[in-house]
């Protein structure tokens, strides 16, 4: 047992501050255990959400040292013993109290996403599907709705104004899931994602995939395929011709040069090959944990509007596409 230092954000919609606490930490505990001990011994009214304490319900999302995480899955042993652990509420959603935020945004978006459309004329009990076919959708159905991806996505993280038009990665995988459902009767899932869910806002930074506790490949397996096939469908013969007749070496040079975040026109590419290696490793960005003894947390304390980004304050959005593992073929 050791006594360790914590900073926990306390307050509500009208403001708050990081409080210092010394709390006992036992071997094998996770951050949520510490929050519970804090409730039981020092702050009985400290608000936080949790249910299963096993990484299954997605209730206990918070930001720990600036990283969006499930607190029941964040082991204390991942921190140095003399390290101060800072716990703050999710940044993207309005604070209700302490570590509890108002996540109703997500429920509204869930409600707007068109539901499964059962195939006509197939009676219950008569559904037949192959395991390989359901597996693609099953990956997305693993989602525990922790909303860490929603919290992380820069499109809404510090841009309240985008919330109206942007459903967010959680609901892109819902659209993809239904799109890939072997028996779903609706055929315009991708187009809907593009036109009504704001898929076009996404510029494949992969931050959402990075934080997903269920390791769902949100970008690679849902967003990118949906974007690609949206492009496929709005098929442009000239571009196609361009792809066919240009020499590969010309293409690569040209493409790197003209690729901008939102290119005016889809850039031609040789047979599906991108001008950028999508699969190369990019170093995981790090958040600035503490400045002095304070985490720049809200408007009052910080030198900028908004919290420090979980991906480091050096990163500026929009990200230069040349540094991304994705090549953006189209913009809307």
């Amino acid at each position: 047992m050791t006594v360790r230092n914590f900073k926990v954000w306390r307050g509500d919609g009208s403001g708050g501050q990081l409080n210092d606490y010394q709390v006992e930490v036992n071997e094998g505990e996770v951050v949520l255990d510490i929050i519970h001990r804090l409730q039981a011994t020092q702050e009985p009214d400290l608000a936080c959400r949790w249910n299963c304490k096993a990484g299954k319900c997605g209730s206990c999302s918070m930001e720990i040292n600036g990283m969006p995480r499930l607190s029941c899955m964040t082991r204390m042993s991942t921190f140095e013993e003399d390290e101060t652990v800072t716990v703050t509420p999710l940044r993207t959603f309005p604070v209700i109290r302490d570590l509890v935020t108002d996540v109703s945004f997500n429920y509204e978006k869930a409600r707007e996403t068109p539901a499964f459309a059962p195939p006509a004329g197939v009676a219950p009990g008569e559904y037949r599907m192959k395991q390989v076919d359901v597996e693609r959708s099953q990956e997305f159905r693993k989602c525990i709705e922790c909303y860490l991806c929603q919290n992380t996505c820069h499109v809404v993280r510090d841009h309240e104004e985008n919330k109206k038009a942007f459903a967010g990665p959680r609901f892109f995988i819902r659209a993809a899931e239904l799109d890939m459902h072997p028996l779903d009767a609706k055929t315009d899932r991708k187009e809907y994602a593009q036109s009504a869910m704001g898929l076009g806002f996404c510029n494949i930074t992969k931050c959402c995939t990075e934080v997903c506790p269920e390791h769902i490949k949100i970008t690679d397996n849902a967003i990118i395929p949906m974007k690609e096939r949206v492009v496929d469908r709005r098929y442009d013969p000239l571009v196609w011709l361009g792809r066919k007749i240009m020499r590969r070496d010309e293409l690569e040079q040209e493409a790197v040069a003209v690729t901008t975040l939102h290119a005016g026109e889809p850039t031609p590419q040789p047979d599906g090959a991108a001008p950028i290696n999508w699969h190369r490793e990019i170093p995981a960005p790090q958040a600035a944990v503490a400045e002095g003894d304070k985490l720049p947390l809200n408007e009052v304390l910080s030198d900028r509007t908004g919290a420090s980004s979980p991906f480091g304050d050096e990163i500026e959005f929009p990200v230069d596409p040349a540094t991304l593992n994705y090549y953006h073929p189209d913009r809307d």
Partner: protein
Amino acid sequence: MENIEKHEYDVVVIGAGGAGLRAAIEARLAGKRTAIISKSLFGKAHTVMAEGGAAAAMGNVNSNDNWMVHFRDTMRGGKFLNNFRMAELHAKEAPDRIWELETYGALFDRTKDGKISQRNFGGHEYPRLAHVGDRTGLELIRTLQQKIVSLQQEDKKAHGDYEARIKVFAETTITELLLDGDRIAGAFGYYRESGNFVLFQAPAVVLATGGVGKSYKVTSNSWEYTGDGHALALRAGATLINMEFLQFHPTGMVWPPSVKGILVTESVRGDGGILKNSDGKRFMFDYVPDVFRKQYAETPEEADRWYTDPDNNRRPPELLPRDEVARAINSEVKAGRGTKAGGVYLDIASRRPAAEILKRLPSMYHQFKELADVDITKQPMEVGPTCHYVMGGVEVDPDTAAALSVTGTVQGLFAAGEVSGGMHGSNRLGGNSLSDLLVFGKRAGEYAAAYTDSLEKRPAIANADLDAAVETALAPLNRAGGENPYTLHHELQQVMGDLVGIIRRKGELEESLARLGELKERVAKVGATGGRRYNPGWHLALDLRNMLLVSECTAMAALEREESRGGHTREDFPKMDATWRKVNLVSSVAKTGEVDLTHKPIPVWRQDLLDLFERSELAKYLTEDELA
């Protein structure tokens, strides 16, 4: 005067787990204005934790399976104490309820010919559990959640408002049911977020609040499981049955805290894991009961040979039935040979090469590695009995799910899911809960809707009752120097874990009742600091009285039932007794708050159901007179 938000609904469903959501869907499909109330966010209820699957005799994997086989298995599992009609309905209707989920968009794992795959599970004769990897509960709840969304989308089209006919009140806790005479008139509670009060005026209420595990020290259950539904029902005049039957798993993790309560599957023992006490002794050899002597090895050498040569050697004693293993662990710990956390060691690391463990127990390995940084290929696990499921619950009419009272029914009150009792008898088979939720959730919704049609006028709520509910809810906040709810909760868990745990004795049960009595007085003086907005201390203070009331029912029934059966093990009455099979123990509370326990004969079996069993098998459970 408090400002209370008021809503009018036809059917109010308390609980957003599998049972609650299924009930709400049915009520809405019947055209009723329906509210769903849940203590946590929508989609987080305990049902998400279920892993194994949902039992339904679809016969996809083995075509010999049918409802009669499922019925037999269920009755055997519950040691013939189950309400036979519920077990019958469950076995007959489960397949339809599962297939229906596919039309809502569920994606179960498939067989080769594209049907829903079914897996084997303890107690089920054929592969029967529809599943999705090890996250079946999540699939179930998400599917129902999405079905509700789709109904809301229909309503939006028809009425311009998503919430025209079905609305979810998340993070809202019901603290009291309100009556008009012996009829339900509404439900009262608070929004966790704001601490403001809310009143639902409704002629029909469906309870689907889940279980009671949070009264125990080591449990696989979440904070929501404080027995609210059980207590609400009692206070509304309904009765509970069989509260002595709780399912404990013998090997749940007790240490480290990050995995406390998580279950360690039996296959760890089947694959060579052994149990050791803190002296390092493999103690199970000392606990082989006489009746099992012939089948179990006497020396470690023989036991170890069994894994490779089961035909010529007897089984290792680690593979004794669950209750024997639990009893052995319990005895070692009570004799002071347990670990500091109150468990024993389950060691597979020193017995099998790391590569083999990884191959045979991949998800166990990952779960412990990720959650607790415990490497089960290198170190032993610390395990002990874990409270998992409550078989007892609200006594209901099997067909309609209407809650019964001492004199008849509580008009307008329905219960389904873990909060209801009877279906599982003295022990639940794995996988039978998820199907139970669907079958009886649907029935509860359907009959609640029908009940509202039968009414001539809406029942009215008395102002005095409302004022009393407000006062009770605010009391802890007004008691500045009151006792800390977390301390009281901890003590309650201690009492229940130590004295009303997996193995029970008369003396200990009597002591538990005395201790619960003291706690009851202290809980009446519990205090909460802070304000009303999202204040977990206050919420716990309010949950405590429910936990205490339900714990009292459990302790009393456990003391009364002088036999061992399923989830109730008395060390002083180790055998099953056929005369006790004929009895349900029924708890109710008087106006004064005293718990009353009575014996009630179980319903008489229909002959055609009895005929499903061999006479020789029935002879093991029924008395001579019944057989004659």
